[in-house]
């Protein structure tokens, strides 16, 4: 038979029942998803770097956004791509979407770009275009370095790219001002850096899932990457820079609240522990 003796407050906050913690977490997540109270987001150095790199592209050059991701990493890479597209439109930079791996990537990115284009009144072919999925990895990049219209051929809709107004004067990578890599796959960055960034000195900025990001910090340190978005956090930071809070901001806001909850619980437990210990040692 367990008898419930009245407990001191310091003991009680040390022994919050687990069900209560579960309920708190559940409540916080549901509440913040339905009626969010935004916690501050301050862009970190690498995320700001992505925006600055986009803003710094000369007006006569285009940006390539290569979207090597599909549904499996969409939760992180989708908002990253979207925020980059917003950054391009806001700074009136022309960009082209393309990718080398999962063919799905250009389709998903195309939907995001179309949605944003409507918002800014941008026109396909003039302000942005989609080069589509190009098979051949290194070979594509090597031939792009020499002659982009030849290497790309037709765009996502089947139009030869040299017929697009924005492609006027775009011969080779020399007319590319920035490459933005958004990827859930390793080896893509190495390929672009090895074949485009290194030989032709074209700036590169990138976005990765949180899991794969750590291996690319050295490239950031060495200046081979101008900036880098890390997972949903990076996407949220860029979303806040372009003032288009979307899915990533919503998710990171819930994350912030959940983390604050856990940290408060830890602090509460320790406060109880310290007071209880003091009470026992007169």
């Amino acid at each position, binding site marked *: 038979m367990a008898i419930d003796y009245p407990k001191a407050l310091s003991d009680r906050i040390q022994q919050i029942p687990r069900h209560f913690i579960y309920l708190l977490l559940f409540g916080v997540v549901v509440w913040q998803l339905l009626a969010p109270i935004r916690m501050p*987001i*301050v862009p*970190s150095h690498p995320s700001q770097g992505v925006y600055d790199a986009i803003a710094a592209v000369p007006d006569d050059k285009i940006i390539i956004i290569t979207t090597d991701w599909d549904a499996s990493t969409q939760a992180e890479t989708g908002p990253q791509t979207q925020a980059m597209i917003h950054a391009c439109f806001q700074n009136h930079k022309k960009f082209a979407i393309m990718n080398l791996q999962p063919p799905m990537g250009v389709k998903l990115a195309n939907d995001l770009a179309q949605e944003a284009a409507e918002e800014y009144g941008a026109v396909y072919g003039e302000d942005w275009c989609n080069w589509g999925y190009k098979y051949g990895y290194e070979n594509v990049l090597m031939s792009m370095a020499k002659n982009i219209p030849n290497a790309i051929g037709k765009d996502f809709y089947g139009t030869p790219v040299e017929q697009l107004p924005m492609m006027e004067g775009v011969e080779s990578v020399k007319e590319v001002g920035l490459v933005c890599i958004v990827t859930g796959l390793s080896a893509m960055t190495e390929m672009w850096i090895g074949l485009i960034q290194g030989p032709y000195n074209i700036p590169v900025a990138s976005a990765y899932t949180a899991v794969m990001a750590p291996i690319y910090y050295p490239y950031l340190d060495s200046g081979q990457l101008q900036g880098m978005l890390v997972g949903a956090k990076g996407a949220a930071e860029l979303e806040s820079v372009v003032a288009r809070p979307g899915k990533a901001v919503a998710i990171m806001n819930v*994350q912030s609240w959940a983390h604050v909850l856990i940290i408060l*619980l830890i602090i509460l437990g320790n406060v109880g522990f310290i007071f209880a210990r003091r009470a026992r040692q007169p």
Partner: protein
Amino acid sequence: MDFAGLLQRLFPTVETAATLYVYLAVSIVVSAIFIFMLHTLLGPRGRRWLIAAVTFVAGLFFGLEYFYPVAGDPAKNFLTDWIEPVSVMLSVVGAFTVGLGIYSLFQVHGRNVAQRRVGWHNSLAFFVATFAMLVFTLWEYYLHLPQPLPEVLPWPKVVYEVLFNGMFAPLQAATFSLLAFYIASAAYRAFRVRTGEAALMMAAAFIVMIGQVPVGSWLTSSIPTDSSLAFFRLERLGEWIMSWLNTPAQRGIIFGIAVGALAMSLRIWLSLERGTFFSEQS
């Protein structure tokens, strides 16, 4: 001599289906006789010796290929071409143990149903789920539906979709997501300043955890990113802990287990293991 060639010489391909079945039947009979002869001719010592010999040869085969000198491009030695087919054969042999696992499940749940034990209806649900998944996964597989999928799906495909995407995948995702609750309550309970060790663990967890969410970056955002104090920005401090305190400690563990696993492998390979399993006869 390459692997395929040797197999071809030892086991020449047969021409017609009829001869194939004859060969198969004869192989089964001959194998049965061979196994029976092994069983009757070998005494306990002979069996032990044979088991040790098989273990040794299997280990030697995989190990020697790595350490034996190689030549040519791609670099090869006399065992290299054998590694892949032998691994496939082992995986096929191992696949036949699935029956044992399923037998174990059927044994436990079959008894529950047969004896109407407490909760027998759960065991019945188990059987229904097993057979439904087995039948419709195979059915869907042999429908060989064209891609893209037709507008109107055949009903077995619909059932498969509901079983897989409506039950199996959500059950996986929901169970996985239980970890959010468990990690919150484990953090609350475990991170107390009871001992110096616990306090260190808590401090590290605290900084890394908060450094990952936007609210953490915000807390120390007043420290300029280019000052020498930038090191103390929470997200930087978290990264520093991860890569310069966590990595070497993990390496220390990994070196230890490398040697430990090497010793275990050697004992297994040379049948030196004593005092644990499969060693009492010696």
